[in-house]
């Protein structure tokens, strides 16, 4: 019997960090002794265009190299995508979808094509990004919120990757801001 592969589909707009989130979660899973893949669905690189990222995580080696055929969680970085993209197209029944929005879960729910048992979660990751990092880059807070609702990886396991990804390029202030944003979103995510 093949080992279960946990799949995450990340929806964002070019520049929001969907690829970074997809690979960061995969990288942290590796450090936790798991097998993983993180990759974007490539198209022409255009700031603001809808983009997808994918993460696969498993306890056994992963040999599949296609896009995901179904997934166990969806994270949407921008609520304006909801009218443009069917963000839950790959989401399996009973699984969660997380939306970055200032609106309530009940309101965004209307824009989603939900299947049986799928739950909606919301977090205002833009505001958290602005408050803590100084920019409305939602990727790290979205990771924090997703870890809360899925329990996939311990939240403390991300500190090393945040340091590695942002430390040399942006300095300690940005690292600290991202760590705060990660934890704040973990606390603030709300079920719909």
């Amino acid at each position: 019997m093949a080992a279960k592969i946990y799949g995450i589909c990340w929806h964002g707009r070019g520049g929001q960090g969907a690829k970074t989130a997809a690979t960061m979660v995969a990288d942290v899973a590796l450090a936790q002794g798991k097998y993983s893949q993180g990759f974007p669905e490539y198209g022409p690189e255009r700031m603001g265009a809808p983009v997808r990222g994918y993460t696969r995580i498993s306890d056994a080696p992963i040999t599949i190299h296609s896009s995901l055929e179904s997934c166990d969680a969806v994270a949407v970085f921008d609520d304006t995508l909801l009218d443009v993209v069917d963000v839950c197209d790959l989401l399996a029944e009973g699984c969660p979808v997380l939306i970055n929005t200032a609106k309530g879960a009940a309101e965004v729910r209307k824009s989603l094509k939900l299947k049986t048992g799928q739950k909606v979660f919301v977090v205002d990751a833009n505001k958290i990004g602005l408050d803590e990092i100084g920019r409305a880059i939602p990727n790290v807070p979205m990771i924090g919120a997703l870890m809360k609702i899925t329990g996939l990886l311990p939240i403390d396991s991300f500190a090393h990757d945040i340091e590695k990804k942002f430390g040399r390029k942006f300095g300690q202030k940005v690292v600290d801001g991202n760590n705060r944003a990660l934890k704040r979103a973990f606390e603030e995510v709300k079920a719909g």
Partner: protein
Amino acid sequence: MSTTAVSKGAGSKFTPHEIMGLSGNEAAAEALKQVNPDVAAVFPITPQTELMHKFAEYVANGAVDTELINVESEHSAMSATVGASAAGARAVTATSANGLALMWEIVAIASSLRLPIVMPVVNRAISGPLNIHCDHSDTMGCRDLGWIQLYSEDSQEAYDNMIQAFRIAEDKSVMLPVMVTFDGFIISHTMERVEIIADDGVVRKFVGEYKPENYLLNAQHPVTYGPLDLPDWLFEHKRQEVQGFLNAPEVIKKVGREYGQITGRSYDLLENYRMDDAELAVVALGSTAGTAKAAIDELRDEGVKAGLVKIRCFRPFPGKELCATLGRCKAVSVMDRSFSFGLEGGPVFNEIRGAAYGAGLKVPMVSHIYGIGGRDINVTQIRGIFEGLKKLASGGRIETVENYVGLRE
């Protein structure tokens, strides 16, 4: 973008390794760093660009002492590599698709001069119309230019093949350039788990010091490279090139075994996956072989005797080995990620069918062309291929030899 995690515990018979999250490009660059070649000629082309970008960082920060040559085109990249190799250096370059097409002329010259160049080729569709995504039209298109071709399933194999390629190319009985291919974006830009040999010294010892025999900078024994070669000698020289390919399989297998003794990952010309009692088989190369394995695992759970033959070494072509395995099956599909226009079935299919005729195989065999220009190929689609094979195995007729997977018609 790399994580250092646990190593295999002390007491393992294999050399210590680090587990890293690397893309295929990063894994190939890591292998190049550990080998530390003398010369690298670099020119960017998607999706290869990141590979030499990463390697250029290693040059800039002093991790290697490679002479990096920035050139103005791929034609110049291969020319500089040929010049460096003929001069006596261990020389590399890297490319994709149209870059490979532009260097075409010199690609053939490199092999005819018996220069042991190593070149990663990140598979991408040859234009046009313009497409930056994966298919195998680039490397299949130059399968007759005299290079050894090793196809990699994932980032791990890209790394492993890169290291082994130097030993294979530089073997005195081979002396042929080697292309190490991996699928553009699907492997080149996917971050996944890769085991890296922890000690660069172990890699350098495995690859060995490069000791050229006849080279231009040896003033004691002057030689000429690339002179006029008219009807009186070219035939003989090409026949010698053939001999390099005849000698290569044993060398590739030997190097693959020795690599396995160090790392625990052995390599052969082919990889047979669940083929022992397989009745239905697909043949694939590159990343699709891995996706096929997942499809086969599902089918096996359902009681279907499915298997995969993965071609790692496409040149020299392991026809005998393929037939030995496929001859026991009841139906076979050969998966091609490129066309051979004007020929029924893809290039890999036709080579296998040719070999099958020579070996007297009577197995029904069909061609499935897929994944052109980066079109996705998934587990469900590969299961669909096996559904077709079930019908053939139970006596169904071959309706069409050349079939398409994932095509809108």
